[in-house]
Each structure stands twice: as C-alpha cells, then as structure tokens.
C-alpha cells in the first residue's frame, strides 16, 4: 500500500477519470434539454465517443500503474525503468487530453449557447 501511495503521488493522481462522471451527468440531461431527435442522437454519439476514449485511457493507465508499482517496490530501483514508464504515461495523458478536448469542442459545436448554459451553466455542476 505504501508503494501504491508513492505511485499515485508520483503520477499526480487521476488514474481514474472524472470525465466519466461528467459524461454520465451530461447524458442524463440530453432528453430534457434537446428537443430534436436527430440532434439528441448526435450529442449522445459524441458522449459515447468520450466515454469509450476515457475507458480506453483508464485501461492503459492501470496497466502502467501496475508496472510502476512493481518497479517502485524493488529495493534496488532501476531509475531508467521508472523514467520509461513515466514517459509512456505522460504521452498517454497528453494524447488523451488532446482527444477529449477535441470531443468537448465537437459537443460544444452541436449545441447553442443557451443549450450549453442549460447543461453546464452552474459552475461545478456539469
């Protein structure tokens, strides 16, 4: 458990993804806020893409965390192994951030300003 703590501190948290909560809450409001069936479907499809991308990222991150925990628990730590895993993790994170931001803008372009406000208008309440 000490190793898991060191690993989460080292990676900077966030192995699980708050985006999934965001998607779940947003999905729950689509039928209420969007009246046209075609646009509802488009928005739900974008949210589904976000969900799939987030799950894919979480699965890959979990594998790297396992590897990192294995290395961190060794008494004689090989720094190169840690560096290699961190590089892979940061690449994963950067790619994911860019993809999820693109999808966020896709979602934004599917809605009017008023609809966006109805979904996300209250800060902290997606």
């Amino acid at each position, binding site marked *: *458990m*000490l*190793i*898991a*703590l*060191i690993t*989460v*501190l*080292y*990676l*900077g*948290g*966030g*192995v*699980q993804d*708050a985006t999934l909560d*965001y998607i779940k809450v947003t999905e729950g409001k689509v039928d209420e806020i969007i009246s046209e069936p075609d646009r509802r479907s488009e928005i739900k499809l974008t949210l589904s893409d976000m969900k799939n991308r987030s799950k894919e990222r979480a699965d890959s991150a979990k594998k790297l965390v396992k590897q990192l925990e294995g290395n*961190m*628990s060794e*008494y004689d*730590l090989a720094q190169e192994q*840690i560096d290699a895993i*961190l590089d892979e993790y*940061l690449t994963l994170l950067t790619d994911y*951030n*860019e993809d999820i*931001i*693109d999808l*966020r*803008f896709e979602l*934004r372009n599917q809605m009017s*300003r008023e609809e*966006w*406000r109805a979904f*996300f*208008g*209250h*800060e*902290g309440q*997606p």
Partner: protein
Amino acid sequence: MNSMSKRRCVILLLMGLTACGGKEQVSSEDQQDAAFADLRVAVDDTVTDEASKSEVMQLVDELESDVDKLREILVMRRAEIRRLNADYDVTREDFLNFANETEVRIQENRRNVLAARARLVNATTQEEWNVLTKVETKAMKTIIQSHQGL
C-alpha cells in the same frame, strides 16, 4: 498503549461512529489521518534501529505533506476544468495551457516523492522495506482511491 496507538484508536472510533450515523461521510482529513497513523504504527513495529526509525518517521511526515499538496492541486484542477468547460467561448489553447501549467506543478511533487522513496530505502534494511511496502489497510486504500478519483 503508546501515543500513536491511542491516536489510531481515537481515529478508528471516530470513523466507526461516523459510519454508524448513516449518510454522514468520514472526512478526507480523517481518512488521511487514519492512513498515516497506520503507516506510522507499521514503521514503529518494523524498523528496529532508533536513528533509522526517526528518519523514516520524518519521511512519512514529508509524504503526508506531499499528499496534501497533491490534493490541493487536484481539487484546484477539477474546479478550473469545470469553470473552463462551462465557458462557451473558451478556446482549445486555454484548456491545453491549463493542462501544461498543472503538469509543471505536479512535477515538483514528483521529484519530492522520488527523493523521499530513495531516502526510505536508504533508511531501511531490505527486510524492513519488504514489510513496509506490504502494509495494507482500509484507510490507506481509501486515501489512495480518493486521489486517483480526483
């Protein structure tokens, strides 16, 4: 019963009472106190050399401080992402700049924790290290999960 064990009991009692209260949740501060109390008890039980024990206890304090710093960063990150997302006119660059700024702040924590880990290894024998790395308690699991979820 030493002072650490007494403190641990008080925390467990508080957690138990809170759990019995139904909807009330144990605060993250109480969870963190319990997790680090567990770790200090394990260090006390495991590390035999007094100078090494003192060094390891100091490192546990530093790790706890790193946990605080990371939590602060992650809570701020979550709030800022929600604020950015709510803004219909925000740009892609605003998001990416914020992600980069956060990563810079996390890097400092990363350096600290790796240095603390190296010092932990130096202050323990291989046998002691093997025991400490296997310490597993509910409170520690909860605090780790809470950071992973932020």
